[in-house]
């Protein structure tokens, strides 16, 4: 177990490693099918969320569709 200090949507966050993106989404209570994830400016495709490990210093962006014109 080690601490991972990452950034999620611009805010610092600490989680226990090892952790994958799927783990992070679960901790955030987000449905992976309703969001899109970027890890260090790379889109992480849904099928590999569970296989993609997070590292200390990572920058994660989690986006979804909202109302807009």
């Amino acid at each position, binding site marked *: 177990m080690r601490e991972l200090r990452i950034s*999620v*949507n*611009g*805010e610092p966050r600490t989680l226990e490693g090892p952790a994958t993106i799927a783990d992070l989404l679960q901790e*955030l*209570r*987000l449905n992976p099918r*309703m*969001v*899109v994830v*970027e890890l260090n*400016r790379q*889109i992480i*495709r*849904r099928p590999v969320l569970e296989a993609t490990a997070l590292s200390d210093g990572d920058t994660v*962006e*989690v*986006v*979804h*569709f*909202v*109302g*807009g*014109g």
Partner: protein
Amino acid sequence: MTSTIPAAEPLTDLPLTIAGRTFRSRLMVGTGKYHDNATMARAIEASGAEIVTVAVRRVNLDRTQEEGILYHLHPDQYFLLANTAGCYTADEAIRYARLAREAGFNEYIKLEVIGDRETLLPDTEGLLAATRQLVKEGFAVMAYTTDDLVTALKLEDAGCAAVMPLASPIGSGLGLLNPYGIRTIKRRLSVPVIVDAGVGTASDACLTMEQGVDGILMNTALAEARDPAAMAWAMRWAVDAGRAAFLAGRMPRREVAVPSSPTRGMLAQ
């Protein structure tokens, strides 16, 4: 000698087709700025629209239990057209477009690259650069642009699936400021021309469709109406009326009068 039965129905029209896909409505609507999602859903339903735009934004991590917009807009009933609203550079717009496509609904993108914060007018250079890149990546690019013909032609050459000239600035409700410009773009382009931004009320929509364009996208006109669903209903028929008038072929404009009643057969004076 055959007699002609006057048509009781409007002239038949071909369906709107963009990048090889047909749509049942020429009226497209945005999903932003509504008071609440229920009002939005009612207005969209009243509009008869099939294409609805959505934006891509960070999930609010403090409020993840709220219903997302997709709860109110089922992808089976509506065609979700993601936009790159809020992007001021080509790179930013490309990034947002890729994120939108990853959500997995379709490869269409309403491309916005904005050049000015006050007017939200497009940055033509950035728009063309982003268009070229996204076309290469297989997107069906629908580009939000000005009423300038030369830019519209460049966007078409760059491979846009549709060109979307503005009627007037986003959210301004100023209506169709440059009918000539829009008419000219429609006359010269081969790809669909869909007027986006600035429509305020039904007459704006009708006048816009009378220019011969293929469709209209509006958001604020509905969201900021006192009764959005009622305005959506009005817009639905305004778009149809304008389209029907265009297909019927309007009379010419004249600088002088031409009498509508006979000039002969007047009584002796």
